[in-house]
């Protein structure tokens, strides 16, 4: 009996840790929609589109698959991607889609992606930064399948490309709106991870805010998670306690904005068009994703055989990112934000243009110059007006 209880305790411990690991990575059972037609038309389709088939009325069937890092019910990042998939189903003729949700980054992801490729999907979208290496590996093994990785920087010459949107343009607008609404010029940012994408977004909020109020400050709290509602909220409460009266979130749920609303303060949500719906009266607006058109375009390219990897980074002019107002947006804010957005679409204004000062106050980019994509994609330093620390910061000037 004695040894048995020991065994039990050890088993308990190991099992609890194992499940914890799974639970932490959002490990719900991957739900997979079974593919309906197992490729009757494309059995001999080893050479892509080289066969000169007679022009049928129906365009060639394209089967597309998505790999999601979270549950589609997260109301944020993954939800937005799934909206994109649904857009494809609705607007692209003769296409068949499937998805697998809550796939942890790492070894599991590679297995899931390979599995989809083996099932004969023509194009596979992997929608999290951490899938990059796994996608690259599988892309090498399946040269006839097109792989699109979201938010990374790797690609090859034939069948593996990356796709992201210039969300920083919308984050600049968020900064403008935040500073116009704020009473004391203090803006808090709930920041997921110190990676270039997030840093870029924080910087653009600061730049936008300072364009309205030269004394505006953006205070950063790192939460080291994309999705953890209670933690996101705690970070927001901390920022509110520290005197910030507008909260901008870079994480996946509208919880931080909700916290601000409850105290009669304001906030800006992220990711999904509907994010303001459940964020209270204080929601000024939401910089959101609109993946559908970009997905549709890639699928058509694959169908026509014109697909070529090129590193896709479209912006507001292409509609992949947008800004939607919430209940706390004043007419003044709406007018200003819409004006700036139109200027970006027309190519008359670029938030990445100088002059840009780094956190220490030194001039990082002169007037008349614009940050290159390279600089934007590898950004590891804060702009002036940001209060916070990057663990391995690389400031461009001292």
């Amino acid at each position, binding site marked *: 009996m004695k040894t048995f209880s020991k065994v039990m305790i050890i088993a308990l411990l190991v099992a609890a840790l194992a499940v914890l690991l799974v639970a932490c990575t959002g490990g719900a059972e991957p739900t997979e929609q079974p593919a309906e037609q197992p490729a009757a038309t494309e059995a001999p389709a080893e050479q892509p589109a080289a066969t000169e088939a007679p022009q049928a009325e129906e365009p060639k069937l394209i089967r597309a698959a998505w790999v999601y890092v979270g549950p589609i*019910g997260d109301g944020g990042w993954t939800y937005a991607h799934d909206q994109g998939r649904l857009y494809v189903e609705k607007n692209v003729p003769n296409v068949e889609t499937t998805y697998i949700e809550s796939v942890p980054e790492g070894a599991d992801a590679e297995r899931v992606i390979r599995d989809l490729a083996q099932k004969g999907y023509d194009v596979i979208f992997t929608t999290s930064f951490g899938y990059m290496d796994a996608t690259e590996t599988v892309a090498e093994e399946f040269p006839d399948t097109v792989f699109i990785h979201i938010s990374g920087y790797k690609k090859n010459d034939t069948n593996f490309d990356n796709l992201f949107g210039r969300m920083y343009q919308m984050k600049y607008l968020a900064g403008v709106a935040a500073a116009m609404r704020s009473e004391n010029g203090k803006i808090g940012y709930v920041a997921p991870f110190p990676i270039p994408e997030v840093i870029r977004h924080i910087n653009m909020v600061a730049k936008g805010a300072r364009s309205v109020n030269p004394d505006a400050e953006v*205070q950063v709290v790192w939460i080291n998670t994309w999705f953890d509602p209670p933690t996101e909220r705690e970070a927001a409460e901390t920022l509110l306690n520290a005197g910030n009266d507008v909260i901008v979130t870079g994480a996946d749920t509208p919880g931080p904005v909700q916290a601000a609303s409850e105290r009669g303060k304001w906030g800006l949500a992220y990711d999904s068009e509907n994010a303001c719906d*459940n964020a209270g009266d204080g929601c000024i607006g939401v910089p959101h994703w609109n993946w559908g058109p970009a997905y549709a375009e890639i699928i058509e390219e694959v169908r026509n055989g014109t697909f070529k990897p090129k590193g896709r980074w479209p912006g507001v002019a292409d509609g992949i990112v947008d800004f939607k107002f919430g209940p706390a947006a004043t007419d003044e804010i709406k007018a200003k934000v819409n004006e700036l957005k139109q200027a970006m679409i027309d190519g008359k204004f670029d938030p990445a243009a100088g002059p840009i000062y780094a956190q220490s106050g030194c001039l990082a980019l002169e007037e008349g110059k614009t940050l290159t994509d390279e600089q934007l994609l590898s950004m590891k330093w804060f702009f002036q007006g940001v209060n916070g620390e990057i663990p391995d910061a690389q400031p461009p000037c001292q």
Partner: protein
Amino acid sequence: MEAAFFITILATAIRAGAPVIYAAVGEIFAERSGVLNLGVEGMMLVGAVSGFIMAVKTGNPWAGVLVAMLAGGLLSLIHAFLTITLHADQVVSGLALTIFGIGLSSFMGQNYVGVQGPQFSAVHIPFLTDLPVLGQILFSHDILVYLTFLLVPASAYFIHKTRPGLHLRAVGEDPATADVMGISVARTRYIYTFVGGVFAGLGGAALSLAYTPGWTEGMSGGRGWIAIALVIFAFWEPWRAMLGAYLFGGVQALQFNLQTIGITIPTYFLNMLPYLFTILVLVFATGERMRRHLGAPAALGIPYIRGER
């Protein structure tokens, strides 16, 4: 650093701790009766989603709380049936319950993501809330937080000072003797496993109706596991579980607050601490003498079959 800095941290700790306290106290009851239930995370999630759905449908958050408790309790009965009636392995059954609960809650909540529902907001208690420092720390919260202040002493009193509490401990320590004394081991274990589920469901409701109002998949974010870890940390005592829950909430709040004044501690390290401590306790607690000393129920995790030793 001014006093206000610490006051806000302590107040946040108490708010953040409430859902974990419910789940941990519930698990203490179950484990005290000898049933280890690793399904807390699943029961919390099902409680959170069903409570939220009910609150949305009726517009009454109290109806939500009731349904959440019931849902958690019902789920725990699956575990009770498998482990008490069928003598199944408690670890396996509990893990299965968590996995089931995660899936079930996602399924139930798919149309409720982003829906606005009723919620408990902060309740001003005359006199108490107006107390200078204590008022802000202890009495600036919602009703579900205040309830933990009553639940913990009541549970401690029940376990140690009442006759049913004595029976509960007897069943967890030495079921054979309890059986001989005429206490039904199976019935007692059923009851307290159910109580554990009820409180886990209530903890879920404290999340979806008060702390982070609304439903998002997986919203408990591992707090069910923290609760299980805290039970060991607390050596199966409600008071210490409360303290542990506040420590957990406080450490997180402290970490964020330190960032706002320019000090960064890695969150990863802090998030690891409760589990690290649990491991340490388990390492030291494997000796029989030590186990007794720490207060682990002797029959924890062992199915009781009459006549078998």
